[in-house]
């Protein structure tokens, strides 16, 4: 019996064919992985199933019945629920209010908060999803927020659960927890579809995998019959090299940039708490940590976007006066910044490649004379850099908003690297880019390191972090809780440290047992 059958689904957006004649068959009671690179059309397909988009062509059957899913309401009615990658939660409201939204219990026409709390409590007990229904969502950790999302689905009596990149922001421990919950749900008869680009998790969790590439189905097969290398090849369409060559850089590694007791206070909380670290030339210092533990503030402090409330920044051994630490001053001092959210801080979507490639350096003598833009010099530079960094484009007059994620990132990386910075703050440098671009960006980072640059790498991808970094510092609750050579860590210890447990993960495992 199939829970979901999608036949010949095609979805044409304005200029993009997101899905082309896609078939997807999901058995009832299985965990099905929808595997593919960014932009392969996984999310589009699931948004169609959830009624967010109307397909251009094709038909859908749910539990054997042909259906038209015009909107999410209809999908919910059919027992389909979706946990989005970006949680659809209302931060200032309580867990209970969030869970019952849309199907609120009422008493005499009014919202019955007490009943909502009771219902959520019962539900979380039944499925082993510990949360406090009265807590405000803004106070929850990412892992717990995800539980709230799953509770939302269960409250709506979902039989088919779609999870979009569910592990993207979780620690290894949280991932273990999530998998336990999902297996439990499967045992109680629910059907689960996960959208992912991670091979390991597909193999570990899913029964069946359907692979999408460029909007088309490559194949669909039981996970028992494949291995990681094979999956990677199917997903990318060619054989992928997993290893990046990396040798230690010879010579003295002097400290280029450093923080001493850096503290940032937000809402009376130390979001950065007495952080000291040293970024050395010819080294990549990796920062491991669960998102929201001070990474953003750390980046912002180093780039002059955030003021310190305590402690100091040192550049070339000299302490910077706190007044003189502005984004502009840091750029001019040679601190290059690859922002963690490129759509937000990285580029101006409506500006051309040429305009974006000088952003932050637009005052440089090369591009600006007496307050006037030197168009010729700028365009020549833009042509040179976009060629050097392999930006796929028609011309430097294209807007950056029209480029793919990978090419946008190359524009940003080209912008920073071409200025020969002393220090590079690289945050999530490969987030949301395709595998080809990932390999390229990794290689470029290593090149810069080998050229003697001091690099700080912040990444949620532990694999990337351990692969590229020479040293890794773990950031938890605004503090550096541990720092070692990268090859001394494995993912488990890193994960334990990232969630505030001592190295070795003993406490972590104890706590799990206690739960």
């Amino acid at each position, binding site marked *: 019996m199939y829970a979901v059958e999608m036949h010949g689904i095609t979805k044409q957006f*304005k200029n993009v064919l997101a899905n082309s004649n896609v078939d997807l068959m999901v058995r009832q009671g299985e965990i099905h992985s929808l595997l593919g690179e960014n932009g392969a059309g996984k999310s589009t397909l699931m948004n169609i199933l959830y009624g967010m*988009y109307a397909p251009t062509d094709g038909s859908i059957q749910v539990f054997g019945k042909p259906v038209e899913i015009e909107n*999410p309401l209809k999908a919910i009615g059919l027992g389909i629920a979706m946990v989005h990658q970006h949680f659809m*939660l*209302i931060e200032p409201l309580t867990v209970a209010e969030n869970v019952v*939204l*849309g199907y609120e219990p009422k008493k005499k026409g009014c919202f019955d908060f007490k009943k909502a709390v009771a219902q959520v409590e019962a539900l979380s007990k039944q499925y082993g999803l510990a949360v406090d229904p009265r807590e405000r969502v803004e106070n929850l950790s990412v892992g717990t927020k995800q539980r709230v999302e799953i509770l939302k689905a269960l409250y709506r009596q979902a039989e088919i659960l779609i999870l979009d990149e569910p592990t993207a922001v979780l620690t290894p421990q949280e991932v273990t927890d999530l998998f336990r919950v999902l297996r439990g749900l499967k045992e109680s008869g629910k059907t689960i579809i996960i959208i992912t680009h991670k091979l390991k998790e597909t193999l570990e969790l899913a029964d069946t995998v359907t692979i999408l590439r460029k909007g088309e189905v490559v194949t669909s097969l039981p996970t028992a019959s494949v291995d990681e290398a094979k999956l990677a090849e199917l997903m990318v369409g060619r054989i992928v090299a997993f290893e990046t060559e990396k040798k230690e850089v010879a010579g003295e590694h002097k400290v280029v940039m450093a923080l001493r007791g850096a503290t940032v206070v937000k809402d009376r909380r130390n979001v950065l708490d007495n952080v000291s670290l040293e970024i050395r030339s010819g080294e990549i210092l990796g920062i491991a940590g669960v998102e929201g533990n001070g990474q953003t503030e750390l980046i912002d402090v180093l780039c002059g976007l955030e003021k310190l409330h305590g402690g100091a920044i040192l550049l070339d051994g000299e302490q910077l006066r706190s007044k003189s630490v502005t984004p502009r001053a840091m750029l001019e001092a040679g601190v290059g910044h690859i922002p963690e959210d490129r759509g937000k801080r990285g580029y101006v979507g409506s500006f051309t490649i040429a305009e974006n490639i000088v952003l932050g350096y637009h005052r440089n003598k090369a591009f600006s004379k007496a307050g006037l833009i030197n168009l010729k010099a700028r365009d020549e530079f833009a042509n040179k850099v976009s060629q050097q960094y392999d930006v796929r484009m028609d011309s430097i007059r294209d807007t950056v908003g029209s480029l793919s994620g990978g090419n946008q990132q190359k524009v940003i990386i080209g912008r920073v690297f071409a200025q020969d910075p002393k220090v590079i703050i690289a945050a999530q440098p490969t987030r949301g880019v395709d595998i080809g671009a990932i390999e390229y960006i990794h290689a470029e980072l290593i090149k810069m390191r080998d050229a003697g640059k001091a690099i700080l790498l912040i990444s949620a991808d532990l694999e990337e972090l351990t692969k590229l970094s020479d040293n890794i510092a773990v950031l938890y609750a605004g503090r550096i809780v541990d720092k070692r050579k990268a090859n001394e860590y494995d993912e488990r210890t890193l994960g334990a440290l990232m969630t505030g447990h001592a190295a070795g993960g003993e406490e972590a495992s104890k706590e799990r047992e206690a739960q």
Partner: protein
Amino acid sequence: MQDVLSVVTSLVAGSIRVSIPIAFAALGGTLSERSGIINMGLEGTMLIGAFFGAVGAYYTGSAWLGLLTAMFAGALCGLLHGILTIRFKCEHVLAGVGINVLASGLTVVLLQMIWQTKGKSAEVASFSNITVPGINQVPFLKDILGQVSPLLILLALSVLGVWFLLYRTVFGLRARVIGENPEAAGSMGINVYRTQYICVILCGVLAAIGGAYMSIGDIHMFSRDMVSGRGFIALAVVIFGGWHPVGAWLGSLLFGLAQSLQYRLQTGSIPPQLIQMLPYVATLIVLVFARGGKRRAPAAEGRHYYAKGEQ
């Protein structure tokens, strides 16, 4: 002593009275902004309310029917604002500016059509104060609340009503959710547009009542551009009322105070132009103090929500 007391009571009574139109508009603005729609058109909607209140009262001879006419016209203004911003994704500020300019021009054109003048309407029926039993026996208080406009009572009920709607009903919960994150609401199957339409239409009705108070509650005629910035002040009141209905009322009272001080000062030797400036300067000053308040604007305020299939 007696003198000081009588000055104070008349000042308080005056503050309450002149705060009524701003309070209605701010209440409407609060409701609308909580659902994510910034209504810059409060000013114009009040003007429309003032005008049609007078028109209704003129033709029917009843202030109550005048009020009803104003409410209906206000609902149409709200609906127009909704169609522009929700259906057609007009920039909220521009929709508001458009409605204001439209109201300003249309009322004069209609004034000319109905009363053959561009300045003031004829005298029309207006509300008379009602005596509040009980309070009119209490010393001092009777001077403030012993005799009140029925619209003040309506205002108190509206504040209570909007509070109840926002914080005690399912509709209110959904409206607040939409103001924070319309995409989340949409993904939960909530009809975002319908909720927003209801909020902007109610906002229009409330603002129009505020306007009607000016023409048929306080005096008994409409005069050209008589709202003169109260709608904009109401927008500021929404901010320092912390997007809360009770806050909106309290904020309006502060303005009432500034304005009734203005009336008192007018008898003195200070140039009238400087006195007329007072409410607007007061708005700026109060905004200075409103900063640092804990409450923040609804996160999705002023943003457009695209439902499925919309570009």
